[in-house]
């Protein structure tokens, strides 16, 4: 606990220090990074100890704010969610040190102030055990990340994104306010341990789902996410995508632990939300041209996958299917951890690309892997991990979720089977689409020829931007190969999250870790075989003629880089299949005549939810409100008339 408080203090010091040293160029960066890294290092140890159930400490101080109290607790669940917070924040800080050099010529003090503030507030959110404290931290988190999003505020998109984000998070918070008031109604206090959800648990669950789902990026409350995450500087995007949206998952889990025994329909709802989010996320990611936007949508997808896991877990607990419950919760939790690894990795590398090539539009990139082989390799690793390819960590967590699904398929009855089947099938579809999506992202951006000669020649980024990515990548591999150990260590967390007794959790976990080990082994075997085959091929080719030529051009004499397949054309088959859902925007200039001059096909996909739901609603509402404007049309006679009429009506009403 003391270490935790110390790390909080360090974050705070970093924030203040960055502001105070604003005057001298370079200093805010040094201070901010140093503090963040130190805080991360200090904090991760107690977090791990708590996560593994070694210790549960709490601290409760009085607070003069009505119903407020400074009550924090570090239990396995909090500890588990704190680990990535500290880890990713520290690494992102190091990365940002190099990345923010791009903004030379303007003070980075604000950036580092808000970065450290964001980190600190996330920590408080996760340990807070009082509604007021929680909401304060929650909103501080939202605001500090908001100002990171609009850090590059001279660009209009960033400001628009900021507005969307601010509004979305406020509306989400409104639901949380209702949630906490409902929880606190009985106990007369807003401390978590005094909550009682004896009445209206269903309503409470829905409130939590909407309020926290907005932060976690569940469809359709995800609209802010693809706007905000790309706009932020990449180290901030990494923190937001990899860690911050997980606080939504955390909140949902925390509420579940409070409300006690779940009902089956919660699981179904959560599953359904997760499936829709995952599918929508991956489809929209598939159709994006902006690399970071693509990653943001894939965060929506992964939030969905986590939700599927949780949903299956809830169904399991509700229907007494322990194996399913444990597999579901374990999978979801492990995926939380894994996603924080590969998503930050992907954002780091994507940031390096944007940093080096000065564009995030994959249609203009290409051939990067020759210029920046290391970054390319790292991005490939991240892609493989997020596509859940064995033996990387993404596979481990999705494997567990599949396990939960299959347990539901084999060992339950009624609607539970149906939802489990749906989960398995759609997870499979999502997996396939994810492969397509990242094949496109990596293939178009890193392979082939550079598509746009006007871009500057890219180069590997500074080591400060490579090292964090390398760390995360190795993390992906390690967790993937040792997943079975990790899962066994997850025991305490799963116990708290699922509310099941330790006696039944431990064996269930043990029974999963075996298959997990096999699965990992199979993946590693594949790698070994591949290496062997590669060696065989080298041996065969040694001494034979190996020459380089142009790509076979089907006899066409003048191939140019612009003849390559573009991202738009790559996904065209899928966008046509799902056109009714995606409604892609297509600019097609058809070739005309016998000697066509120019023809082109471009497609981009704005968020259909935003385009066809939220914007119309807001526009309508705006028009409706504007219809009231004539009330204030300037004539004082009219104003007095209002008074007179109101008065007469009131008197008639009250005295009659």
């Amino acid at each position, binding site marked *: 606990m003391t270490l935790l408080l110390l790390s909080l203090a360090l974050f705070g010091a970093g924030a203040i220090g960055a502001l105070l040293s604003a005057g001298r160029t370079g200093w805010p960066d040094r201070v901010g990074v140093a503090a963040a890294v130190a805080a991360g290092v200090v904090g991760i140890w107690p977090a791990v100890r708590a996560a593994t159930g070694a210790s549960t400490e709490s601290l409760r101080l009085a607070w*003069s*704010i*009505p*119903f407020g109290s400074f009550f924090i607790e570090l239990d396995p669940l909090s500890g588990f969610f704190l680990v990535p917070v500290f880890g990713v924040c520290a690494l992102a800080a190091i990365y940002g040190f190099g990345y923010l050099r791009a903004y030379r010529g303007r003070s980075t003090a604000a950036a580092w102030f808000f970065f450290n503030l964001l980190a600190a507030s996330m920590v408080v959110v996760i340990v807070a055990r009082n509604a*007021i404290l929680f*909401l*304060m931290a*929650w*909103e*501080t988190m939202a*605001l500090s990340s908001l100002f990171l999003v*609009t850090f590059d*505020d*001279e660009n*209009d998109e960033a*400001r628009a994104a*900021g*507005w969307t984000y*601010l*509004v979305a998070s*406020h*509306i989400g*918070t*409104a639901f949380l*306010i*209702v949630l906490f*008031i*409902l929880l*606190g*109604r009985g106990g007369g206090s807003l401390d978590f341990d005094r909550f009682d959800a004896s009445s209206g648990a269903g309503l409470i669950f829905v409130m939590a789902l909407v309020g926290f789902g907005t932060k976690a990026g569940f469809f359709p409350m995800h609209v802010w996410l693809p706007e905000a995450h790309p706009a932020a500087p990449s180290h901030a995007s990494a923190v937001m995508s990899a860690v911050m949206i997980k606080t939504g998952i955390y909140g949902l889990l925390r509420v579940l632990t409070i409300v006690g025994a779940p009902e089956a329909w919660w699981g179904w709802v959560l599953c359904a939300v997760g499936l829709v989010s995952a599918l929508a996320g991956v489809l929209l990611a598939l159709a994006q041209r902006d690399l970071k936007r693509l990653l943001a949508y894939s965060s929506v997808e992964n939030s969905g996958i986590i939700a599927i896991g949780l949903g299956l877990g809830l169904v399991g607990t509700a229907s007494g299917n322990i194996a399913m419950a444990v597999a579901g919760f374990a999978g979801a939790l492990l995926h939380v951890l894994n996603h924080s690894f590969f998503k930050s990795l992907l954002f780091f590398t994507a940031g390096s690309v944007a940093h080096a090539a000065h564009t995030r539009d994959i249609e203009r990139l290409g051939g990067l892997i020759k210029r920046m082989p290391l970054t390319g390799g790292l991005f490939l690793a991240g892609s493989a991990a997020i596509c859940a390819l064995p033996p990387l960590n993404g596979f481990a967590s999705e494997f567990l979720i599949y396990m939960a699904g299959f347990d539901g398929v084999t060992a339950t009855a009624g609607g539970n089977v149906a939802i489990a089947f749906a989960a398995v099938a759609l997870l499979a579809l999502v997996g396939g689409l994810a492969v397509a999506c990242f094949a496109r992202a990596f293939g178009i951006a890193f392979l082939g020829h550079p598509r746009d000669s006007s871009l500057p020649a890219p180069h590997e980024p500074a080591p400060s931007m490579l090292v964090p990515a390398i760390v995360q990548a190795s993390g992906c591999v390690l967790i993937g190969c040792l997943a079975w150990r990790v899962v066994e260590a997850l025991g305490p967390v799963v116990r708290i999250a699922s509310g099941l007794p330790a006696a039944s959790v431990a064996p269930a976990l043990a029974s999963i870790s075996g298959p997990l080990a096999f699965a990992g082994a199979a993946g590693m075997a594949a790698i070994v075989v591949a290496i062997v085959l590669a060696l065989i091929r080298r041996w065969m080719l040694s001494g034979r003629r190996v020459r380089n030529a142009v790509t076979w051009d089907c006899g066409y004499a003048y191939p140019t880089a612009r003849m390559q397949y573009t991202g738009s054309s790559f996904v065209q088959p899928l966008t046509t299949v799902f056109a009714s859902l995606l409604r892609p925007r297509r600019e097609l200039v058809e070739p005309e005549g016998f000697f066509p001059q120019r023809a082109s096909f471009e497609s981009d996909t704005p968020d259909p939810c935003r385009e066809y739901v939220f914007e119309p609603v*807001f526009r309508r*509402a*705006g028009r409706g*409100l*504007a219809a*009231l*404007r004539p*009330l*204030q049309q300037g004539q*004082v006679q009219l*104003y*007095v008339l*209002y*008074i007179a009429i*109101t*008065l007469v009506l*009131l*008197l008639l009403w*009250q*005295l009659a």
Partner: protein
Amino acid sequence: MIASMILVPALAGLAAFLIRSDRLRRVMLVAAAAIHAALSLATWYRAPAVVRGAWLGEDAAGRLILTLTSLLFLACAVYAVAYLRDERGKRHSDFEEGFIFSNAREAVFTGCLLLFLAAMTLVALSRHLALVWVAIEATTLASAPLIYFHRHHRSLEATWKYLLICSVGIALALLGVLFLAVSAIRPGGGAVSLDIGDLLAAAPNLSVPWLKAAFVLLMVGYGAKMGLAPFHTWLPDAHSEAPSVASALLSGALLNCAFLGILRAHQVCVAAGLAHFSERLLLGFGLLSMAVAAAFIVGQSDYKRMLAYSSVEHMGILAVGVGLGGLGAFAAMLHVINHSLTKAMLFMVAGNLLAVYRTKATREVSGAVRALPLSGVLWILGLLAIVGSPPFGPFVSEFLIAKAALDSGRAAVAIVYLLLLAIVVTGIAGPALAMAQGRSTASPDAASRQSPIFSAVPAIFAAAILMMGIYLPPVIGRSLHEAARLFGRG
């Protein structure tokens, strides 16, 4: 001591009209404000006993609003001195229509400021409802010239509307007071005076229909002053045309005083067992005001008007809070403080922006953080605070009001309340970001010429707002409870 709190500003105000030298007058302004503040703070240490039948006295609610007013006024006085020094002897070209206009005489402005303070003090301190009425009347008279400081047709129009609407309202309020008097007449002849103490004592046997009618009239009359919809119509005009320091006082102090007037009537109703009746009215008008304000805030093109409407919204919130009773009343009293601090600060910052950008059109202002670093940041902070986002003061009170609504089982009220707050957020978030961020459209030299006082004063307020959000001094908390108990119904 109480009397002195009224006399000091009143005499100073009269003197201000006579004094020739500007410097001396400014010194006196600040001095009077400081003395007044000191006196009002002193009452926290040695609270003067409230004497039955005495015309003046200080109860918890009065003390809160008085202290708030007087501290606010002190800050505004400092700001005003700097402002007047800037404006001195200039002839301005109107930046909307380009004509040349001059300001009212500084003596008039200063004098009216002080008389205004005196009147508001009287509102807070008078124990006799008729006297309350007189005081509120006086505030109208004293503040009208403040609105008409810039001598041009728009401010003239605003003043005219302010005078007419508030006077009509006040006349109705007088009728209400008379009705109250009638309701206090015992059938057997002989009557209870309008002293609050006597009224509360005699409350149970007041005649109900007269009391109801009286409350309706007072509610409408003072409501016009307080800016409850649909009587709020003067507010946006006055606030957009008055000099910012005046707007700050109007929104931060005057509205509270009118609110206090309504509270007194409500107090009597509660004592008379008509709590449900008066609370229902307050709830209704509160929500209505919030709704109207929300409708006009969304897509508002003039940022000073936007602030004015947000005042209407927050008056609605106060009414809702009191209407909920119990915890709601406590929250409302807390919100009085939070809103006054925030809104006063916002109007001052708006004044700074106006001075530099020379436009009230939201669309034409951007990059304030670059042009006026401190003011720009304060602008964002203030707007975030006013829409009730943690960790600022208003969040706490607004949260508590929502809690009061849900705890008392009024789910519908809570839903509407939160929905309207959300709508307001969508309306204010835009300007908050768009005006503060982006490339600056201001002329750098104008920005550089601005005196630090202009941003220092609001900065103090910002600190106070943040403090109210994360630490509520126990002494304030106690007197809030005391005040809430006056009309909290248990």
